[in-house]
């Protein structure tokens, strides 16, 4: 299918995203991947869809509700788009379920990991499960009756339905029992009988599948590991909760709701309270999608009507609903042979009492590449700063960190020890607020200055600044900057680059950055760094323009960049102009890419590849040849309007020679991958890059892992007598 209209020079954002999810699915379909990893990819596809519907589709529907039918810059109206999305989601979902039921589940059974569906229950199993249901599950269930059709029938004529839709979700919530967001429910169409046992009429009832019991029930008997699904049990045995009724139809379903309700940020006097309110509201906001097992057409119609959802919004699934829950199986203990061979992150810094993290950073600018290298130096940095009596202050941005993170603990310790600890916390990281609120208040109690967001913008930049009074009486600063979050858990999965530096100009600008985002200072111009939403986009566009200006046939310009998503129209247009001026543009975009590469006269010098593999590509890098005066940057920002205009983001230069070589090598390696890379064509189709005749297979992620093994020996070469002086100024 085409992902742009005839006249448009841009792929559509949502459709491009769907292709990203299709690439994730490809990894699940790929027989070269271990079985449980394939299952994990299938689960990720579902979990991605959940978020996509809660946020993106919800926003489109909100636009349509508001009567906004104008096409966006790629030329599609909300109606066209919603139809196209529904079509593509079904295609992808079809492949996903086909693979699950016909390949993965049978293959797992062959490996001794059996997942049973009700049709597979033998009498003995059935008995055991029924006992289990009665003893363990039923007491936790709350059956709810749905008011009879004549009391509230939203499907009773289009006019009434439309009117109800305009009333908002709250009105409907009063009629249909609350079903939360993404919670699995079983629905039953019940038939009551009178005293003589004659049928009396039908009732609809629902039961929420408890989320605290675990999705999979392990069977005690039989060979290997055998599991039944909790939702299957509720559907299969749930009728026992309705004595006196017979069950006519039954089904499983889940409702996805609009999750993108903004916080009322004008009320930021108590941001935490406002946030808590949003978390509650999310359970009751607009329904967007109904996922339902293909067990009963009648129930599907009734339930979708109750939520005011049309046919396009109903997804009948040929298998268990909510594959996200299969992550539990993918992570099951004891099946290591069905997963990637474990790779321990490598320790590439040899830190001792005689060679502290400070010494290492003063030797040179230091680049770390997660997850190939250990995240530990970053934890060490914060922990050393917390316990080092010479350290006066630690400032840090925190966004989606894990609750029991060693970094949060170290920061609390530092604050209790009387150091000045400033933490800029992002409370609005989309689905993690509940966790964030708890540790933020713990930090505050320890005496840290906790700043929630800045100027009503999400702080997405990742930076740590440690201020240290050194032996010579002078204050020196050490900075860590990263493309990824300070989260020790995701650091094992996300491909991120981070930079340690003591370069005084960078440190000074990071100091200014913290002053600005904590409100201590008004905006000041940064010369080496760029900060969104102020001048980052402007800087990127002008660097692209500079490349176009300096490009000549004898020495053509070169831009290479890596990011998660490319959606910003101004940047895309600048890249088109650069291409027209003869600049070669190499892009590595993991997710959404609205730029159309390889179109004659528009973008024939631009190529786009995407790498999807074992690790989630997350680093943002950009390189400009700049007529030989090359510039190389790392960034926390994707080239998307959201990042460039509504978030605090940083773009920072890589100055140290060794650091530059390494980041340059990293960036360019992506364009050599012929194992996990896909190239984007002008039609919007992604084609797998295959090794050419006689070319060796090259997987960029494998290469980084192998390369990281050689890091430590190289690091040792920078011995103590060669400690470099901290440079006065950036080149």
């Amino acid at each position, binding site marked *: 299918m085409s992902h742009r209209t005839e006249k448009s020079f841009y792929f559509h954002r949502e459709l491009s995203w769907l292709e990203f999810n299709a690439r994730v699915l490809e990894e699940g379909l790929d027989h070269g991947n271990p079985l449980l990893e394939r299952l994990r990819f299938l689960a990720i596809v579902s979990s991605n869809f959940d978020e996509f519907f809660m946020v993106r589709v919800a926003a489109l529907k909100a636009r349509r509700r508001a009567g906004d039918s104008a096409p966006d810059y790629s030329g599609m109206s909300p109606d066209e788009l919603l139809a196209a999305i529904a079509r593509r989601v079904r295609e992808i979902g079809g492949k996903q379920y086909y693979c699950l039921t016909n390949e993965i589940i049978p293959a797992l059974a062959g490996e001794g990991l059996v997942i049973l569906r009700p049709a597979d229950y033998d009498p003995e199993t059935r008995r055991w499960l029924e006992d289990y249901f009665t003893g363990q599950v039923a007491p936790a269930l709350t059956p709810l009756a749905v008011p009879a059709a004549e009391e509230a029938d939203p499907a009773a004529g289009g006019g009434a339905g439309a009117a109800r839709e305009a009333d908002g979700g709250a009105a409907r919530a009063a009629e249909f029992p609350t079903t939360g967001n993404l919670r699995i429910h079983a629905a039953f169409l019940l038939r009551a009988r009178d005293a003589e046992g004659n049928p009396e009429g039908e009732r609809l009832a629902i039961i929420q599948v408890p989320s605290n019991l675990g999705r999979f029930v392990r069977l005690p008997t039989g060979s290997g590991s055998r599991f039944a699904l909790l939702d299957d049990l509720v559907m299969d045995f749930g009728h026992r909760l309705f004595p006196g009724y017979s069950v006519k139809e039954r089904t499983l379903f889940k409702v996805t709701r609009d999750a993108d309700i903004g916080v009322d940020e004008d009320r930021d006097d108590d941001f935490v309270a406002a946030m808590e309110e949003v978390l509650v509201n999310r359970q009751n906001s607009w329904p967007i999608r109904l996922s339902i097992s293909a067990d009963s057409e009648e129930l599907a119609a009734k339930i979708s009507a109750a939520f005011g959802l049309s046919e396009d919004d109903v997804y009948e699934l040929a298998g268990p609903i909510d594959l996200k829950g299969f992550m539990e199986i993918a992570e099951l203990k004891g099946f290591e042979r069905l997963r990637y061979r474990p790779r321990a992150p490598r320790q590439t810094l040899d830190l001792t009492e005689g060679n502290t993290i400070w010494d290492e950073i003063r030797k040179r600018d230091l680049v770390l590449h997660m997850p190939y290298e250990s995240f530990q130096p970053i934890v060490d940095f914060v922990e050393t700063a917390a316990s080092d009596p010479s350290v*006066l202050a630690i400032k840090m941005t925190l966004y989606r960190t894990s609750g029991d993170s060693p970094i949060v603990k170290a920061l609390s310790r530092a604050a209790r020890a009387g150091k000045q600890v400033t933490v800029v916390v992002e409370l609005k990281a989309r689905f993690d607020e509940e966790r964030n609120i708890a540790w933020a208040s713990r930090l505050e109690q320890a005496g840290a200055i906790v700043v929630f967001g800045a100027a009503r913008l999400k702080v997405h930049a990742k930076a740590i600044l440690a201020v240290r009074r050194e032996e010579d*009486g002078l*204050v020196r600063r050490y900075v860590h900057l990263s493309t990824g979050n300070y989260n020790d858990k995701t650091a094992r999965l996300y491909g991120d680059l981070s930079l340690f530096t003591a370069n005084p100009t960078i440190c000074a600008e990071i100091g200014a950055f913290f002053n600005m985002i904590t409100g201590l200072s*008004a905006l000041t111009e940064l010369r080496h760094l760029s900060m969104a939403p102020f001048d980052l986009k402007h800087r990127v566009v002008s660097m692209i323009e500079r490349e176009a200006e300096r490009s000549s046939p004898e020495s053509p310009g070169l831009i290479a960049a890596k990011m998660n998503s490319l959606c910003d129209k101004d940047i895309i247009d600048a890249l088109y102009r650069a291409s027209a001026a003869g600049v070669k543009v190499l892009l590595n975009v993991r997710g959404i890419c609205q730029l159309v590469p390889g179109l004659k006269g528009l973008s024939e010098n631009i190529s786009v590849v995407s790498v999807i593999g074992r690790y989630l590509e997350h680093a943002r890098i950009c390189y400009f040849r700049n007529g030989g005066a090359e510039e190389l940057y790392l960034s926390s920002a994707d080239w998307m309007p959201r990042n460039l205009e509504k978030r605090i983001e940083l773009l920072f230069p890589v100055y140290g020679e060794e650091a530059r070589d390494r980041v340059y090598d990293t960036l360019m390696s992506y364009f050599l991958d012929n194992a996990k890379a896909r190239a984007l064509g002008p039609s919007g189709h992604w084609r797998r890059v295959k090794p050419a005749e006689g070319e060796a297979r090259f997987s960029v992620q494998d290469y980084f892992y192998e390369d990281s093994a050689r890091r430590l020996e190289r690091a040792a070469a920078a011995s103590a007598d060669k400690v470099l002086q901290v440079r006065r100024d950036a080149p």
Partner: protein
Amino acid sequence: MEARTEAVIEIGSTGIRVLVANVSGDGAYSILERAGKPVALGRDVFTTGLVSRESTRECIAVLRGFSELLRAYGVEPGKARVVATSALREAENRDAFVDRVAMRTGFRVDVIEAIEESHYMYLAVKRSLGDDARFFARSNSIIIEVGGGSTELMLLRRGKIVAAHSLRLGTIRVDEQSKAAMGSSGYLLRFLADNVRTACDGLEDDLPLAGVRSFFVIGNDARFAARVAGSETRLDYSIVPREAFLSLVDRLKGLSVDSIVSEFRVPYSDAEALIPGLVITALFLERTGAEELVVPLVSLRDGLLIAMSGGSGSDIEAELHKQVIASVIGLGRRYHFDEDHASHVAEHALFMFDRLKESHGMGRRERLLLEAAAYLHDVGNFIRTSGHQRHSEYIVLNSEIFGLQRDELTIVGNLVRYHRKAGPSPSHANYMSLPREDRAVVLKLAAILRVADSLDRGHTQRLRLVDLEMKEDHLLLQTDCQGDLSLERLSLADKCDMFEDVFGLKVVVI
């Protein structure tokens, strides 16, 4: 000097700004941190004469933030150097402001004089040019900074300060003026042109402006011009060619604040000041022979740091002292004073002042006032010898002495008044208007001045004071004079009464 971390804060008319730096002694420093927040102090003071309650609160909030910022570097508020410039200088409620800030934030605000400000600027400019001393050495130069409330000017001849002036012409003040004129832009430009012309005419006496070849401009507006029209950028300064600058100013004159914001990507608060600031600069530039503007990337705060780090020329007090005395002598000359006598008396007065330090306990400021009074005590002779102490007083009180504030001028006036004849009495309004502590200063200084004056009774400078000894009940003044001292003794008998009263000592001269 030991290496340490210092912080300087400047409370200006448009905002409060801070610098934190590593200072390694011997004048070297490296800046760790810069921050600033806008507070519209100037807007308050230049319209109402007062810092409003809201602005005071805002200042306190900003300063509290800064104290948090300083804490990251281990600098206590009490240790920071906090100076305030023109807005606060003119605010009638400045003492209350300073007091409240001290109570609420721990910062001790020092309201510095314009001339002191100029000198810090001078230090900063000199430092930023580094080895490019050619700028200074080769010719005459001018340093200018257009602030919110005032324009600071310094004239230099081959790198030496000839004069420093503070004009009551600033971007906020002008803005208020032009609002009063209902925003007619023609009016604004005419108003500025008139003011600058008058100011330049006055400057010509100090230094012919056409001969000025180096034109230094400090400040935000100048930095903007350097960014937009600069031809050369060094580490610490930029250069803007004269023509490029003038045509930029011409272009800006035709733009609204909104279009400046969107076209040049500057914050609103900066854009508002841009036109008056650069127009004033351009008007001065046109009077000089300079082919380019040099925009040092420094501020008053750098000057403060240089002074704190003990760099060359960092003894601001000494520099200031020179300036004040030069201005005093200039005033004396205007009234044809007996310069030899005046400087002789000044020398003796200071000699006594320094040797009697333990008895009077006064400091540098009082010493300067005594010196000024010693130079000027006889200027009243220009009008009439009889009762000339009263004419001297009149002249002093009605003159401008660079670097002296109104209250200081009043003390000097009182000193010249009491250098002879009757001492203070309740009917002397100028004396009675002084606060109690200043009256004590007048008494002590006048007592010294009278003794010093009597030692040159004949205006012939025939003796020098070589030593001074404190005895039980008298002060022994030893001179190098071998001859007859009866004239001086006679005069002394007449004038030492006040000294006896104040210090409880008879004066004996040998």
